[in-house]
């Protein structure tokens, strides 16, 4: 049967979970069922889906899809529920919410909303609107993926719009992929294809990564393995070489930056007596001084060159420092605002996410937090360490709780220094137990709540702790619009392909019905899906024709030339300031200096922390854990899809030297543990990871036995829950030990 089958209707939609994509899908629908999926076959550049989008039918039609509202009848976390009607579920939720509000106030209601759904309409938006209408709620801040990179981007450039169009990399003479693995994390569709074209053009590519990643292996001419958490030391030593040998772009520094002298004081020992030489960095990073110095000279000498500083090295304790050091290196070599260069930073290019993407000058005095319309947080002052004088980036409101500390906040409340005593959690598009750090403490926290509601498609480890679970439909069963993940110029219209399965509903419809029982003004809920989506697009001048977008499923915006962030600031500085307090690129950031706290130095520094590779704890736990992304999943989504699962078993990667020392064989069962927890999974013994480092891909579902040993392989059982001052999550800063499974391999019943 070919696709010309007359009974087959092709519905234009797109994949919309939290990978680095956002791709075109064409659902072949016959008799109300999606029978096949194709992707973009249209004009260039095609937005081709990856394996995950291609596997979507097994997610949509999974026998594990939640079918009805569920009420917990077992212990929290046990997973025993009974089906109830929507009327019963919503009535009970509304009654509990009224009760919690009356007894403890709105601040005791916590919303946890993550990236499980990336449409503009469904997911967090309607839940937030509903809770706001109900009198407000406590919310969280700090995005695990990028908070460190975002903070550094704001501190250096005053904006997160620091990226260039991918095709501009063809103008580079050297591309450095630092902790950046687009073969797996996508980084906008077409990025890996562009990296191949760059390689085919003969442009040299260097990869810096503790792992010989798929990207390093496919694109790079040189691979430099580096100890996790030490990237800033290598970048700082590169700056030392460049400035010591006078290879910098002095005219650029003079014209466009502030604070080079303060940085030199640090580099050349005036500040602390330590010269930040390549030899200094070698002992920290494990990268030879020669390799560091050579790369520094090569980067400074290959103008223009693109240093792409991925987010993952910033997903670490003091991760902001790595990202700051990378940004500053791009500036001192004059690689900002020029074709073929790259400013690093947050790296958004085309800014389809912000409706207003005109440049905004930083406010000189903004002691008051911005209004968010949420009564619980309006009027709260900016939180400590926030870059509250700048416009954009993370909302600095001090009434918010950092995502890594949400569990601790639930357990300790105001007495623990948090803004609220949390009694109830409303969780949407989030498998937070699995994806926030320190899972076992998370389980303890979720158990302690008075009431917990979860919107979900599957019985996730998080949903098992809920009092009520509401079944949510997927993007195949509703209309929405997907903006590109980071910085490509397009939108995808997600046309509904099939009716909602079982009794599932959209997040919007759930909130529409629940809001009636909460006696709140209808607000957005008086409008239907289409009205709201039209409203969202009306505020954007890059979607001229809503109906055409809906029909075609995708709007590809033609740019006159590739985006190069800060081109106007560099070409015409008189009339174009950087949106920082100084109006220049801030090597030395005055906003940070005012904080006068060694944890947020005004210049980038290498700062060891409690779980550094050479800290005291490394005697007990000598291996550094990194928790990378998996090609089979987008975080914890797709975990339970057989077509994806079958590709390779979930395992912990370790080098053969570390395996031999411990008597570990490839695919043998091992325990990975530290003081926070223990998990039991197969080992993958490989040369593709440096000795001393182990990798567990994050996102596998937590599955503890009676003794608390996780057999699911959830990496966050082992991760720290202490974020950096700038908000960087410490997922790649955990020390662990590995040993062969003590009791053979069997799982205790």
């Amino acid at each position: 049967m070919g696709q010309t089958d007359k009974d087959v209707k092709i519905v234009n939609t797109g994949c919309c979970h939290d990978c680095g994509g956002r791709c075109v899908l064409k659902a072949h629908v016959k008799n109300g069922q999606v029978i096949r999926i194709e992707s973009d076959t249209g004009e260039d550049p095609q937005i081709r889906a990856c394996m995950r989008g291609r596997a979507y039918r097994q997610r949509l039609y999974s026998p594990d899809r939640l079918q009805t509202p569920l009420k917990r009848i077992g212990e929290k976390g046990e997973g025993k529920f009974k089906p109830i009607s929507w009327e019963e579920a919503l009535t009970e939720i509304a009654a509990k919410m009224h009760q919690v509000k009356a007894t403890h106030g709105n601040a005791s209601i916590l919303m946890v909303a993550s990236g499980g759904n990336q449409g503009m309409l469904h997911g967090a938006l309607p839940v937030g609107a509903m809770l706001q209408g109900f009198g407000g709620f406590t919310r969280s801040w700090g995005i695990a993926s990028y908070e460190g990179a975002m903070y550094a981007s704001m501190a250096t450039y005053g904006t997160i719009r620091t990226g260039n169009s991918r095709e501009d990399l063809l103008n580079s003479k050297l591309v450095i992929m630092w902790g950046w693995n687009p073969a797996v994390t996508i980084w906008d569709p077409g990025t890996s294809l562009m990296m191949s074209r760059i390689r085919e053009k003969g442009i040299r590519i260097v990869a810096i990564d503790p792992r010989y990643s798929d990207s390093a292996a496919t694109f790079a001419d040189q691979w430099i393995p580096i100890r996790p958490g030490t990237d800033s030391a290598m970048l700082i030593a590169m700056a030392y070489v460049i400035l010591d040998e006078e290879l910098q772009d002095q005219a650029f520094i003079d014209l466009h930056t502030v604070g080079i002298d303060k940085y030199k004081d640090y580099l050349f020992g005036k500040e602390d007596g330590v010269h930040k030489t390549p030899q200094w960095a070698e002992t920290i990073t494990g990268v030879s001084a020669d390799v560091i110095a050579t790369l520094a000279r090569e980067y400074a000498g290959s103008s223009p060159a693109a240093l792409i500083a991925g987010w993952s090295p910033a997903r670490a304790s003091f991760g902001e420092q790595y990202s700051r050091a990378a940004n500053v290196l791009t500036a001192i070599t004059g690689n900002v605002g020029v074709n073929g260069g790259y400013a690093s930073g947050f790296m958004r290019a085309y800014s389809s996410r912000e409706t207003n993407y005109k440049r905004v000058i930083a406010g000189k005095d903004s002691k008051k937090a911005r209004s968010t319309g949420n009564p619980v947080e309006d009027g709260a002052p900016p939180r400590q360490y926030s870059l509250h004088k700048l416009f954009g980036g993370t909302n600095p409101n001090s009434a918010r709780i950092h995502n890594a500390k949400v569990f601790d906040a639930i357990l300790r409340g105001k007495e623990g220094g948090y803004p609220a005593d949390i009694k109830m959690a409303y969780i949407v598009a989030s498998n937070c137990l699995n994806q926030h750090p320190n899972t076992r403490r998370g389980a303890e926290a979720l158990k302690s709540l008075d009431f917990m509601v979860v919107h979900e498609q599957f019985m996730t480890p998080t949903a098992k702790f809920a009092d009520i679970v509401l079944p949510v439909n997927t993007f195949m069963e509703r209309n929405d619009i997907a903006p590109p993940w980071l910085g490509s110029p397009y939108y995808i219209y997600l046309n509904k392909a099939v009716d909602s399965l079982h009794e599932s509903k959209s997040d919007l419809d759930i909130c529409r019905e629940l809001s009636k029982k909460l006696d709140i003004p209808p607000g957005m809920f008086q409008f239907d899906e289409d009205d709201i989506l039209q409203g969202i697009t009306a505020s954007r001048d890059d979607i001229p024709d809503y109906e055409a977008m809906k029909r075609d499923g995708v709007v590809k915006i033609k740019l006159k030339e590739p985006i190069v962030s800060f081109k106007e600031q560099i070409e015409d500085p008189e009339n174009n300031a950087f949106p920082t307090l100084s109006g220049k690129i801030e090597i030395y950031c005055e906003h940070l200096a005012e904080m006068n706290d060694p944890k947020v130095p005004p210049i980038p520094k290498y700062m060891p922390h409690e779980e550094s590779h050479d800290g005291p704890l490394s005697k007990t736990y000598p291996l550094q854990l990194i928790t990378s992304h998996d090609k089979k999943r987008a975080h914890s989504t797709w975990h339970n899809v057989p077509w994806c699962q079958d590709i390779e078993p979930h395992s912990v990667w370790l080098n053969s030297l570390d395996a031999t020392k411990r008597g570990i064989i490839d695919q043998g069962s091992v325990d990975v543990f530290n003081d926070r927890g223990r998990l039991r999974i197969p080992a993958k013994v490989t040369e593709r990871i440096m000795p001393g480092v182990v990798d567990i891909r994050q996102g596998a579902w937590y599955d503890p036995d009676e003794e608390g040993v996780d057999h699911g392989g959830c990496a966050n059982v082992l991760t720290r829950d202490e974020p950096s001052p700038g908000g960087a999550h410490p997922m790649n800063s955990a020390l662990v030990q590995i040993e062969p499974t003590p009791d053979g391999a069997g799982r205790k019943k």
Partner: protein
Amino acid sequence: MTQLGFYFNQTRCIGCHTCAVACKDWHDHQEATINWMQINTIEKGVFPHLFLAFIAVPCYHCEDPSCMAVCPADAISKRAADGIVIVDPDKCLGREGCEKTPCLTACRSSSPQFGLAPNAKMQKCDFCLDRLEEGKQPICVEACPMFALEIDSMENLQQKYGKQQAAEGFRYSKKIRPAALFTPKPEVFS
């Protein structure tokens, strides 16, 4: 006779498995034992000097297929028009019905496969005959985010890509003459 062949640019492959899953979706292969398109990984070397390559393994539709030669039921044939190797499920004796299932051992690429149903019949990649008939490329080709795959006559492929018939993880056989053409990944260690 035209011989359709499979071109694989190994230097581009990132091992993402999109082609393999697209194949399963298009042909609705729900069983884990059915992988018309397989992705193999080749790892060599010792840290930090490594070499990594992937290879996409469909059926290479050999000019003299070893599976066809050993089939006791003459269920495997080669289409005259395009050289595509197909299996006739009516003739195939089935996994239990066929005493030795010699097609399984004859093929070095593990292209002949059996599902889990009782006496399942042999099945394999058919270059998406249904799509070819509509003038489309096979789903793996259309799916590849790296534009690393192509199906065309061997003549056309050779004109475009040269005559390289070996790649990492694949050895050409003059006996069976697989209809495959590669841009192989040079064995350079990191």
